[in-house]
């Protein structure tokens, strides 16, 4: 669908970016130490840090992706929410305190605290960079993709805008300004999702009136787009979809339920009949035709697992293992993401680390509950774009009024800023603190450490912008999955065993990080999903039984660590080299 450019959205977004960049300059005006740049002097209040966790973690994928998935496929989008939140339990109960106790600026510090080995620092710095860059690419491409419909600007403008703003934020005051940007973004996101949810419940469920005739979108070989055979324009476009066909019998002939409580809303939705639009593709000489046809379904069928993860209903074992593998990677991945872990160094002690994780879990949990209502609200709003699930949340806002659309669009775009600044910060620490200072052992004064970190941040910002433009036409959503899988396979076994198994040796850690990273990477490169979505090859050509590697590569990381540790001499003591 084509969208009207919203001047209000551009104004709100510009105001947000200018104020956070202004805030960064204000915070960065004082001369800085390395402790300030990398860890915000360890002086961030635990509550601010907790909300910043939410701002760091809730990427555009969480906000737009999950909303869209619930709106299009029903319950299965919520399974992602459940897995993403469960990961914080690992972070709080297993990782938070040791990470805070053992480390200084980066994840490599903590992992290397016992051995002081350059090999460990090198392996962990590389895995940090790989995970951060894989996470970064979809964020940057997403920024470009969002700016086209939301603000009416070209793709590259979105990428460069985010790249420049984030680099400025990170370079001016490092972790201090990154934290505040994430705090502001996290609070705005949760607050406005709450506002939208209240409006959804207040509207209740309304029977839709739109036409139910099938719609055909054709992309001709020369690139022109036709809708139902005529050229696409703002006056002749696909009709918005996603309506209720019939309310539960208890409402009689009424076309609206009126305001509903949250529980009533879910219950009434289960008894309603909902119209969903599935696409069907077909190619001939005239181009590629996608036909969207309506299907009327009972709400209770949409609110149970299996709409997206088809394997859950077909009983295919490989599909079931794929699902388990994904849920395991989400559970284990969160606590191994470097940009999340470095946030533990910004608070003063372990008690504060704990409290801020609890605040983070509260904010993120609330967000995921609200997202369920946003997704279901979008599903029945009559405003969905059948071609783009990512637009579900902004279009839901548009079904209320255009100001809300402008605000939600601007927030969706600024969501990218918070996450990207965390990723650039994590990468900057890995390059300057781990690689230059500890692996290459280049002596640096405190001032030089900060300068080195800032140069690394600028470099990473440029790399991020280049990748965002380069990968524009690739399907990149799977990269976030890669990042979770690689983080979980490479980092978690090393971290957990270092903490809980005294026999762990430095060779064991290096081997586990390297094998975990390479195995999960290799598995994904050879998986059916990548064959289909990236190489454009048939799924059957893949060599792997299922696409998500975590179920195999996370245990493999543990196994490699144990075997290599047992084959190498027992560590002599805490200071052994």
């Amino acid at each position, binding site marked *: 669908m084509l969208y009207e450019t919203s001047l209000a959205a551009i104004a709100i977004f510009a105001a947000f970016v200018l104020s956070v960049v202004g805030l960064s300059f204000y915070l960065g005006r004082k001369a800085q130490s390395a402790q300030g740049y990398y860890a915000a002097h360890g002086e961030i209040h635990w509550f601010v840090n907790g909300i910043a966790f939410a701002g760091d973690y809730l990427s555009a994928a969480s906000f737009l992706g999950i909303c869209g998935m619930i709106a299009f496929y029903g*319950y299965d989008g*919520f*399974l992602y*929410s*459940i897995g993403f*939140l*469960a990961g*914080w*339990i*690992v972070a*709080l*109960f*297993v990782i938070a*305190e*040791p990470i805070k*106790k*053992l*480390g*200084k600026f980066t994840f490599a*510090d903590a992992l290397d*605290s016992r051995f002081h080995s350059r090999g460990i620092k090198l392996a962990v710095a590389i895995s940090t960079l790989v995970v951060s860059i894989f996470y970064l690419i979809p964020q940057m491409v997403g920024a470009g993709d969002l700016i086209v419909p939301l603000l009416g600007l070209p793709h590259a403008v979105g990428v460069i805008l985010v790249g420049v703003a984030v680099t400025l934020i990170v370079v001016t005051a490092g972790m201090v300004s990154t934290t505040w940007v994430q705090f502001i973004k996290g609070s705005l996101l949760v607050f406005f999702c709450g506002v939208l949810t209240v409006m959804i419940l207040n509207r209740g469920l309304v029977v839709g009136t739109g036409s139910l005739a099938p719609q055909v979108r054709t992309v001709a070989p020369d690139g022109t787009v036709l809708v139902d055979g005529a050229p696409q324009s703002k006056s002749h476009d696909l009709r918005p979809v996603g309506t209720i066909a019939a309310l539960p019998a208890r409402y009689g002939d009424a076309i609206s339920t009126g305001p509903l409580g949250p*529980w009533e809303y*879910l*219950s*009434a939705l*289960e*008894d309603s009949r909902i119209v969903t639009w599935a696409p069907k593709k077909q190619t001939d000489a005239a181009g590629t035709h996608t036909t969207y046809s309506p299907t009327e379904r009972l709400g*209770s069928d949409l*609110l*149970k*697992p*299996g709409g997206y993860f088809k394997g*859950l*209903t077909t009983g295919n074992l490989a599909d*079931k293992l794929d*699902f*388990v593998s994904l*849920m395991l990677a989400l*559970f284990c991945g969160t606590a191994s993401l470097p940009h999340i872990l470095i946030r533990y160094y910004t608070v003063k002690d*372990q*008690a504060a680390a*704990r*409290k801020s*994780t*609890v605040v983070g*879990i*509260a904010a993120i*949990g609330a967000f*995921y*509950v609200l997202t*369920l209502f946003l997704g279901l609200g979008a599903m029945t709003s009559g405003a969905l774009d059948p071609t783009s699930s990512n637009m579900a949340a902004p279009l839901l806002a548009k079904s209320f009024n255009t100001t809300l659309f402008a605000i939600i669009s601007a927030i969706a775009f600024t969501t990218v800023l918070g996450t990207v600044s965390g990723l650039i910060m994590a990468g900057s620490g890995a390059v300057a603190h781990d690689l230059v200072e500890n692996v290459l052992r280049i002596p640096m004064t405190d001032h030089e450490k900060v300068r080195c970190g800032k140069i690394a941040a600028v470099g990473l910002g440029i790399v991020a912008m280049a990748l965002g433009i380069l990968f524009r036409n690739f399907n990149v959503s799977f990269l976030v999955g890669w990042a979770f899988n690689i983080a979980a396979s490479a980092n978690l076994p090393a971290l957990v065993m270092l903490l809980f198994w005294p026999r762990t040796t430095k060779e064991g850690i290096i081997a586990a990080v390297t094998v975990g990273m390479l195995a999960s990477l290799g598995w994904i490169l050879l998986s059916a999903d990548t064959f289909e979505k990236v190489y454009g090859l048939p799924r059957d050509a893949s060599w792997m039984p299922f696409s998500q590697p975590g179920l195999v590569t996370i245990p493999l990381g543990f196994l490699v660590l144990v075997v290599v540790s047992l084959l190498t001499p027992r560590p002599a003591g805490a200071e052994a080299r």
Partner: protein
Amino acid sequence: MTPSDDSPPRCEPAVSRSARIGFGLFWIYVACYGGFIALVLFAPGLLSARPFGGVNLAIACGLGLIVAALVLAVVYMVACRVVEGASHD
């Protein structure tokens, strides 16, 4: 260089006690999360049951897991404060 080197040894028992509490709570959550995934895999029909005021078990379990995470997190925070407070006395 690492903070662990210069932290006084007398704090160790409190740290390991809170770690033990954390571990216990962790396994409780693993059981809930694993149980839920097992239900999704092996008893999807059960999740369609609607025992709670017309809302099905799939939604109720999902919301329950989110609330359980928060409840366990708060329990952990309070328990750690009690344990560490006791060791400082």
